[in-house]
């Protein structure tokens, strides 16, 4: 061997040895994620599912090797506490997560408990990727993100379907709180944009199961369609069932609830001519990450416990992980900025399908945004009508 090549060879070996040594010595640290969920009480099904998906998200990231930031490799660890949808307890629990467990990021589920936490989150500069938050309230803390699209945006595909059906008038119903009122306002506005007029809007206290009085009042106006709102599986189911019992024959719109459970609550006959706005659910056609995630959920917990809102837990971790990777930092402001850049043009495939973080106007900032699909219940089964980005496709 010639002397020069020996030196080159030696240098290469030295280089590899050093590189290997530095990789081996890169530290592995824990990134703590706090999960404050309603695990008991009336909202427990949402909280329990959201937490399940958060944990799955963290497992997936850890199994894929964690998050590499500089020379440090982070692995997620989830710490969960129950707040039972009581704001006082949410305060206790979030205080504990931030001060006691010293979590790096947090997710609090439940619109009704968010306002109590704004000050605490702001003081500690905590990035809260909330589930079920109304951004009118949420945006008051600088680092609040929302795991679910807000009113106008979510309703858009449905408005296209309704316009296609020739609907001209509609009534809207939602739970009686700030979130509900904001939601209905958004939907009414969106409907007007496609030529549908609202002839009635009404609100019910959460927990109501007897809707006959409300329905008699609203449906007396003979609307073309009836929007049952976003109150969850029981509200949706009972509203649809009771509206049919009272004699309403027009199309109804349900929102992001388990279609199998809906069939169970309403009954096959009464469910005919109901539309649903939802991400893909177990049993619906889907592919890629969405399919992988839902197959996992069904095999572990069963299709009966599925709830569309829960899936967001996984997406939250996916977005956070990408944000940390892009920002190469765990500083919440830098991560928030990096997440903000996952925009419409740079969408990411998550457990929701193709999604991104909204920026302005129609796509509210700091809100995970994705297109929901519209499904129709006809002849005893659900049919997918269309949805998805970039443009709404009507399948007939």
């Amino acid at each position, binding site marked *: 061997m010639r002397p020069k090549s020996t030196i080159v060879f030696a240098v290469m070996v030295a280089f590899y040895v050093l590189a290997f040594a530095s990789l081996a010595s890169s530290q592995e640290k824990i990134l703590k994620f706090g999960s404050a969920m309603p695990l008991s009480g009336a909202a427990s099904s949402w909280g329990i599912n959201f937490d399940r998906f958060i944990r799955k998200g963290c497992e997936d990231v850890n199994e894929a090797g964690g998050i590499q930031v500089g020379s440090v490799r982070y692995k997620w660890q989830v710490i969960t506490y129950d707040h039972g949808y009581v704001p006082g307890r949410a305060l206790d629990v979030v205080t504990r997560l931030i001060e006691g467990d010293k979590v790096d990021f947090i997710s609090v589920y439940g619109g009704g408990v968010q306002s109590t936490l704004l000050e605490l989150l702001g003081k500690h500069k905590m990035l809260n990727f909330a589930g079920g938050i109304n951004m009118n309230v949420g945006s008051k803390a600088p680092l609040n993100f929302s795991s679910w699209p807000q009113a106008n945006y979510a309703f858009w595909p449905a408005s296209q379907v309704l316009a296609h059906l020739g609907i001209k008038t509609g009534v809207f119903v939602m739970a009686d709180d700030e979130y509900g009122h904001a939601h209905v306002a958004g939907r009414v506005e969106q409907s007007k944009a496609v030529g549908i007029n609202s002839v009635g809007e009404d609100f019910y206290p959460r927990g109501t199961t007897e809707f006959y009085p409300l329905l008699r009042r609203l449906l007396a106006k003979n609307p073309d369609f009836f929007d049952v709102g976003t109150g969850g599986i029981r509200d949706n*189911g009972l509203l649809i069932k009771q509206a049919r019992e009272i004699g309403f024959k027009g199309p109804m719109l349900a929102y992001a609830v388990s279609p199998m459970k809906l069939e*169970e609550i309403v009954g096959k006959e009464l469910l005919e001519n109901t539309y649903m706005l939802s991400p893909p659910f177990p049993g619906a056609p889907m592919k890629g990450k969405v399919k992988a995630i839902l197959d996992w959920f069904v095999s572990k917990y069963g299709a009966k416990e599925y709830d569309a809102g829960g899936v967001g837990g996984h997406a939250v971790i996916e977005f956070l992980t990408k944000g940390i990777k892009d920002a190469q930092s765990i500083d919440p402001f830098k991560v928030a900025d990096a997440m903000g850049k996952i925009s419409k043009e740079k969408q990411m495939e998550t457990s929701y399908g193709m999604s991104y973080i909204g920026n302005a106007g129609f796509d509210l900032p700091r809100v995970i945004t994705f297109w929901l699909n519209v499904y129709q219940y006809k002849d005893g089964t659900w049919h997918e009508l269309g949805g998805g980005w970039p443009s709404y496709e009507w399948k007939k």
Partner: protein
Amino acid sequence: MMGILMDGLFNSITLILLSVGMVLVIGMLRIVNFAHGALYMVGSYVVWLVVGQRLIPLDNVYLGYSIGFILAVACVAGMGAVIERLLRPLKGGFLESFILTLGLILFLEGAMLVGFGIDEKTVPSLFAKTVTAIGFSLPQQRLFVLVVGIAIGGGLWVFLTKARIGIAMRAVAQELEGAALQGINIRYVGMLGMAIGCGLAAAAGALIAPVYTVNPYIGTGPVTKCFIVMVLGGIGSLPGAVLASFLVGFVEAISATFLGSGTAKLIVYFLLLVVMLIRPMGLYGGQEWVHR
């Protein structure tokens, strides 16, 4: 308009079943059973287990439901006997009994939640058709509830006024010592009354199960309404409970239709407050509830 009246009737019948049950229990135990709503909820769960979960594999829904109904009443009546046993040594105070029933509520709700999962349960309707008659339409399922409810109510009335044991029960409710002096077996009658009272709660739960959904918290709403009925009608008074149930049921149905259910509830409370200020022992309440 007829529809609203039917709504009112529907509300009232369920309230009557619950409140009459509670009056019987009060008569026997001399304390308010706060866990009455939890027993109602357990009744619904039993029916769900039999019919919805097909615990007893039967193809005929009607047969399944009937068995579920009987099983629900039997189970809860049995639970009632157990509760009575637990409460007997607590002669010490109303407070201990009250808190025991609170503990029961927590335990039962928690057990259902942990035992059967977090999702809403459904009991399939027996009848999917709707009846349309003189200007209103009511689903057959609700009509069924009305008919059975009235039948139970009627049967109970006959029992309490004509049957010897029924009369004995009323005697025990009215005056414990006097009844004992008359030779009535208080222990036996007491337990029977408790069983019937709790059985009524289960019957209400079993009847209502197919109408809405079933979850561990369905008991709190009805039992709160039941208390309103108690306070309005006079504790321990059967005619008071019936009358107050009708009053509350119809007022709520009418005001909910025109004003929204949140406001309707407030109107009911306001009505109650007015009655309380004028006649604090309730419509039929006796003076024994007031200190001199």
